[in-house]
């Protein structure tokens, strides 16, 4: 009897873990879709132009 109960508990725990993993995967996918929408390239483009100190210095040199 005790064996049966512990087996039930075991499968219940495995089931709960599976549901949690699936939920985590859905959330992760949603995050990546949002990032793709921000770049507008559906995963084709990463980080683009940034107004860094290097770029600022270049703009300054063109004003000479």
């Amino acid at each position, binding site marked *: 009897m005790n064996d049966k109960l512990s087996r039930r508990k075991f499968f219940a725990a495995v089931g709960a873990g599976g549901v949690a993993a699936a939920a985590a995967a859905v959330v992760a996918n949603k995050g990546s879709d949002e990032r793709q929408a921000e770049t507008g*390239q559906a995963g084709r483009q990463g980080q*683009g132009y940034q107004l860094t100190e290097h*770029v600022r210095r*270049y703009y300054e040199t063109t004003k000479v």
Partner: protein
Amino acid sequence: MARMKFLCDAERCIECNGCVTACKNEHEVPWGVNRRRVVTLNDGLPGEKSISVACMHCSDAPCMAVCPVDCFYKTSEGVVLHDKDLCIGCGYCFYACPFGAPQFPQDGAFGMRGKMDKCTFCAGGPEADNSVAEFKKYGRNRLAEGKLPACAEMCSTKALLGGDSDVIADIYRNRVLKRGKGSEVWGWGTAYGKPEKGATPPAGAKS
């Protein structure tokens, strides 16, 4: 959102080809492919003008319109890029481009054309930023490194301007205002207009 553009100041360009060399070196472009080149009008005559030409990353790019496999795409910053895995090397883009930007490396014997190669505004391609695969196909991705195209940064007289179109337009406008000339080489009148009445082109001039 910043839009990337090139602009060459013909009053400053001294035809040194530093931009061409910088591009070749930065991206290890193969022999026979010139992503950028310097064009001189009325070479050797008084008043000759030089401009550095590459892909102009057109707002309504004709290469994108004619590509039969739709390998071109545009980034959110207006940089026109292409996917070499999709390109079939047909050459339609070469005929469509008014600047002769698309280049085709020789692939095998008898002048067989390889996949198209062109200026990427130093923004790489569809592969992961600064990956080995991206470098092999498209060269360095300087934009992702927080830099601007090597040609523009290397230009000794800062004739070739590259970057945020709002910023470089402002820089160019200030130059023209300061020296009182120099914008004549640009515009529809220059590209497609007829010569002004009474004006005679210099002997041996070609356009």
